């Protein structure tokens, strides 16, 4: 684990997490959450957990973003906080 990569990606993860919960549009939350999952996948690849990394890339960043967008199109995009 080359520590600058780890630290930079971890900072991006925290940035994406904060942005995903403060943004006022749920579709933006969905996209930021997909970016969060993909950064998490990079972090696991850096730590040597390649099996976890590609499961997260397909299932976390792929399928759950699709679920999220489908749920938002069936409900509403607006949110108060």
């Amino acid at each position: 684990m080359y520590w600058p990569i780890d630290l930079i990606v971890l900072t991006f993860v925290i940035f994406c997490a904060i942005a995903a919960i403060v943004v006022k549009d749920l579709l933006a939350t969905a996209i930021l959450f997909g970016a969060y999952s993909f950064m998490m996948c990079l972090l696991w690849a850096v730590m040597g957990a390649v099996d976890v990394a590609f499961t997260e890339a397909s299932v976390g960043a792929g399928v759950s973003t699709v679920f999220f967008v489908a749920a938002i199109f069936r409900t509403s995009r607006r949110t108060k906080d």
Partner: protein
Amino acid sequence: MTDLLALIVAKYNYWLYVILMMIGLYAMIAKNNLIKKLVGMNIFQTAIILFYISIGYKKNATLPIIENVHGTGGGHIYAIDYINPLPHVLMLTAIVVSVATFGVAMALAVRVYQRYKTLEEDELRMRLSEK
């Protein structure tokens, strides 16, 4: 004081995981929208998974795949040369469980929206108390 500072800097990843976990906890407790609460729950789960993966890591070790198992043999296999794969396998299950939880929770949120036409917690509480 410098010892403490050195300890904090050396274990920087654990502090950042704690920050990530607290972001998730805050979103679960303080946010008003149900979907935002779900995002907070998922952030909390991934913070815990990240912690477990990181305790399986070793310095100067490689991926847990043994070369030449059926080959020439003779060479010894030392556990210190390989990253510990046990947390990886456990957390692989946790990822699948978290996606299943997320899907069921989204389905419930869609049903709640179809019935009450809102996803905000205070409006839902108002609708429920009207009846």
